[in-house]
C-alpha cells in the first residue's frame, strides 16, 4: 500500500465554549481528491487550519507522507508543500495581483537584500493567471479593484504557484459562477494527474459529486461517515450531514410566482463609476427575481446603487408607484429596501462584536427609543432569530467573527429579516451555507414572498438560480443582457446570455 499523503488521527480542538473538533480522523492518498462536507460549524475549516499549521490541535496527530509533522505556523506548512486556500479571502488588497501571487515567496536576487525579479515574476504571474482563466493583464491590477470572484481566483492561482503537495480548498467556489467553476475543475484534474492531493470543502453538493474521489462527512466535530466514489450522491451526503432527508429543497408554497404588481422599478438607472448603458428592470410582488451573470458582470454594483451606496447619476427608482430618492443606505432602509450584501465580512458584520450586537444593529430604532433600548425586546429578538435560523453559537454574546462561515451568513440574514422588508436584495444569499440551512432560508424567503415582499436574488449558484427564481435577468458586462422565464429559463440560456450571446 502506498503511503498516504495525509493522515490525521484523533484531531481535537477546543475553543472557549465550543468543542470544534472531537477526535476527527481523515486520510488522503497522493493524487486523490477528498471532499469534506458537513453542516455549518461541523469543524471543517478548523480541521483544515490544523493541517495547514494555522492552529495547533489540542490532541491528535498529523502525518504527511507517513511522517508526523507539527507546524508552528503557516510558513512551515507552506514550506512542506501544504497550501490552504482559506474560506475567507486573505489578500493584501493594497498590492497588485502579481504581488499577491508571490507574497511570501518572491523570486529574488541579491541574497539577503532580496531584490525582486520583476520580469520573471511577471511571466510566471501570467502563466498562473491563465491556469485559472484570468487574463494576463490583470497581473498589474490592484486587488482591491477586483470583484470578489476574481479575488477568489487569484487566491487559487496563488496556491498553484508553489511546490504544492497537498492543496486544501475551503469553499473555493462560493463566489464563482459556473464558468469559473468549470475552469477550476480542469485545474483540479491537472493537479490530480500530477499526483497532488486535494482536500476540497464545499456546500455545493453537485460540485462535490463532480470532483471528489471520496467524501468524508463531519458532524458536530466528529467523523460521521465516508462515501466512496460510487456512493457519492446528493441524498447520501445530505443524510450523513443532516441526519435526515430533506424534502422540498426549493419550496414554492407561499408564492404565486407571477403576475404581482411591480414593487420596485429601476428605469434608466446609471450610477457613478458604472456602465454607460442604463439599466431598467422591475421586481414584482410575490416573485423572486433571479439575477445571473459572470464574475464581475456588475450585479453587485447595480444592487449597491439601488441600496444607496453608489450614487445614481441618471434614472429613477420607483417604489410602489412613487418615485423615491435613495442617497444612502439610511434612505434605502427607511424605504424598506434591504440588502444582504455579498461580502459578509466587509459589509455584513461587525466581526469582533457579538451575534446579538449584529442582529440588533439595523433594528435599534425598533427596540425602544435611541436613548433607551429595551433590553427585554432585544433579547427576544436575538432568541427568535438565533433559533429560527439555527445559528450555531454558544450564546448571543459570542463574537460573530468566531462563528463558522455559514453561521456568520445566517446572522446577516437575521439582521434583515427582523425588519419588515418591502424589497429584499439578496446578493449571493447562501454563500457558505450548508444544505440544511439553505433549505430553511429558501423556505423563509418563500414565505416572505408570499407576504408580498419583492425579492431580488443575485446568485452565482446555477442550481439555486434555477431552483428558486420565478424570472431571471442576466447581466453581461454591466448591462442587462436579457430576461428569461418559464420554459425559456434553462441553464444553457442563462450561460449564453451571461457570456454575451443572444437570448434565443
Amino acid at each position: 500500500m502506498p503511503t498516504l499523503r495525509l493522515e490525521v488521527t484523533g484531531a481535537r480542538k477546543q475553543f472557549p465554549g465550543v468543542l470544534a473538533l472531537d477526535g476527527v480522523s481523515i486520510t488522503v492518498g497522493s493524487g486523490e481528491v477528498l471532499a469534506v462536507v458537513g453542516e455549518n460549524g461541523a469543524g471543517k475549516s478548523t480541521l483544515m487550519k490544523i493541517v495547514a499549521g494555522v492552529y495547533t490541535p489540542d490532541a491528535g496527530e498529523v502525518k504527511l507522507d507517513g511522517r508526523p509533522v507539527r507546524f508552528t505556523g503557516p510558513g512551515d506548512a507552506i514550506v512542506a508543500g501544504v497550501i490552504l486556500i482559506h474560506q475567507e479571502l486573505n489578500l493584501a488588497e493594497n498590492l497588485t495581483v502579481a504581488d499577491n501571487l508571490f507574497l511570501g515567496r518572491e523570486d529574488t536576487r541579491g541574497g539577503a537584500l532580496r531584490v525582486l525579479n520583476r520580469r520573471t515574476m511577471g511571466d510566471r504571474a501570467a502563466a498562473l493567471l491563465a491556469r485559472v482563466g484570468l487574463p494576463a493583464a490583470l497581473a498589474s491590477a490592484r486587488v482591491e479593484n477586483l470583484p470578489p470572484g476574481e479575488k477568489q481566483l487569484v487566491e487559487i492561482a496563488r496556491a498553484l504557484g508553489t511546490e504544492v503537495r497537498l492543496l486544501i480548498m475551503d469553499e473555493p467556489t462560493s463566489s464563482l459562477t459556473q464558468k469559473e467553476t468549470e475552469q477550476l475543475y480542469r485545474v483540479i484534474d491537472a493537479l490530480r494527474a500530477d499526483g497532488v492531493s486535494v482536500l476540497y470543502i464545499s456546500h455545493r453538493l453537485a460540485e462535490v459529486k463532480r470532483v471528489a474521489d471520496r467524501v468524508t462527512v463531519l458532524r458536530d466535530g466528529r467523523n460521521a461517515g465516508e462515501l466512496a466514489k460510487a456512493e457519492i450522491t446528493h441524498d447520501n451526503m445530505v443524510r450523513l450531514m443532516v441526519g435526515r432527508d430533506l424534502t422540498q429543497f426549493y419550496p414554492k408554497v407561499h408564492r404565486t410566482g407571477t403576475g404581482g404588481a411591480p414593487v420596485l422599478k429601476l428605469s434608466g438607472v446609471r450610477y457613478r463609476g458604472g456602465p454607460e448603458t442604463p439599466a431598467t428592470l422591475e421586481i414584482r410582488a410575490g416573485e423572486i427575481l433571479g439575477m445571473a451573470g459572470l464574475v464581475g458582470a456588475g450585479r453587485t454594483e447595480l444592487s449597491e446603487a439601488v441600496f444607496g451606496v453608489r450614487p445614481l447619476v441618471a434614472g429613477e427608482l420607483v417604489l410602489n408607484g412613487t418615485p423615491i430618492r435613495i442617497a444612502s443606505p439610511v434612505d434605502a432602509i427607511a424605504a424598506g429596501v434591504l440588502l444582504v450584501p455579498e461580502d459578509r465580512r466587509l459589509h455584513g458584520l461587525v466581526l469582533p462584536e457579538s451575534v446579538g450586537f449584529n442582529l440588533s444593529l439595523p433594528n435599534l430604532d425598533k427596540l425602544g427609543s435611541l436613548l433607551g433600548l429595551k433590553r427585554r425586546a432585544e433579547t427576544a429578538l436575538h432568541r427568535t432569530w438565533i433559533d429560527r435560523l439555527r445559528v450555531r453559537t454558544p450564546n448571543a454574546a459570542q463574537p460573530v467573527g468566531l462563528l463558522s462561515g455559514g453561521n456568520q451568513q445566517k446572522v446577516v440574514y437575521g439582521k434583515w429579516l427582523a425588519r419588515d422588508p418591502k424589497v429584499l436584495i439578496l446578493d449571493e444569499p447562501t454563500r457558505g451555507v450548508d444544505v440544511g440551512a439553505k433549505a430553511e432560508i429558501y423556505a423563509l424567503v418563500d414565505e416572505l414572498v408570499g407576504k408580498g415582499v419583492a425579492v431580488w436574488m443575485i446568485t452565482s449558484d446555477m442550481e439555486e438560480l434555477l431552483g428558486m427564481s420565478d424570472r431571471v435577468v442576466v447581466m453581461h458586462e454591466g448591462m442587462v443582457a436579457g430576461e428569461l422565464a418559464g420554459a425559456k429559463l434553462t441553464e444553457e440560456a442563462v450561460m449564453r446570455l451571461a457570456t454575451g450571446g443572444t437570448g434565443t
Partner: protein
Amino acid sequence: MTRILGVLGLLVALYAALIESNPAAGSTRNLIYVANNQGRYGIVTLGAALVIIVGGIDLSIGSVVGCAAVLFGVLMEQGVHPFAAAGWVLLFGASVGLVNGLLITRLRLQAFLVTLCGMFVYRGVARMIGGAINLPSVTDAHPEFTGALNTLAYVMTGKNEKGVLIFPAMFALLLVLAAVVGFLVHRTAYGRYWYAIGHNELAAKYAGVNVNRQRVIVYVICSTLAALGGVLLLLNDSTISSDTAGASLELYAILGAVLGGCSLRGGEGTALGMVLGAMVLPVLETLVSFRGLKNDVIPAVIGLTLLLGTIVDELIRRRSRVHR
C-alpha cells in the same frame, strides 16, 4: 471585565505605594487633591476615548483646552457674565468639534492631519485673543462678577473663595460625565453605532447607520468636553498663559483612554475603563513627588511604571483568553 483588571491593579498598586510613601500622602486632603486632578484629566479623557472608539483620533484637545481657557478669561474681561461666558466657551468647543468632524467626514481627510492642524490653529487663536489670563484681572475690571466666579469655582473645582480645596468637585463632575458617557455608550443606540463604526465602518454603513453624522456627534462631544476642561483649568489655576495652557493634554487624554482599555484600532472601550485609565497619571505623579525622587529620574520612572502596568495588563488579558 478583564479589560479593566489590569488598570485596576495598577491603580491599587500605585495608591498603596502612595499611602505607604508618607502619612500625609494618604490624608483625606491629599486624596481629594489627587482626585481633583484625576477629574480634570478624566473629563478630557472621556472625549478622547469616544473619538478613539469610533476609530478616530483628536490631537487638537490640548490646544482646545488652552484656547477655551483663554476665551473664557477674555470674555469675562470684556464684561460677559461668568455663567454666560462658560456657556459661550462650551459652544465654541462644540463648533470646533463640528469643524473637525465635518472636515473628517465630508472631505474625508485623515483625522490625524485635521486635528494636528487644529492643534496649531487653536493654539494660534489662543495667542491672538489673549496672552496671560488671570482671574484677579477679571474681578478687578468687573467686581460684580466676584460672586458668580466664586460660585462657579466652588461648584466646578471645589475651592472656596479663599482657594481652600473643600471637596473634589472635578472628580465628582468626572463621575457624572462618565455616567452620562457610560449610559450613551452602553445603553443607547448611539453607543452601538459608535462601536460598530469603530470596528467596521462599512458594515455600519450597510446596516443603515448614518456614519458621518455619528462621527461628527462624537467629535462635537470630544471638543465640548475639552472646552469644559479649559473652563476648569482657568477656574482652578486662576492664571494661565495662552502659550502653554493645556499643551500636551491630548497625549495624556489618549494615554488615559488607552490605559483604560480603548484600542486605537477603534471599537473598544468602556466608560469605567476611561475613568480608571485617566486616574493613573495623577496618582503616579503625586507618588513620584511624595517619594522625593530626583528630577532627572522622574520621566524614566513614569515611563517604566506605565510600561510595566501595560505589560501586566496584557498578561492578565492573555491568561483570560485561552487561544491566540
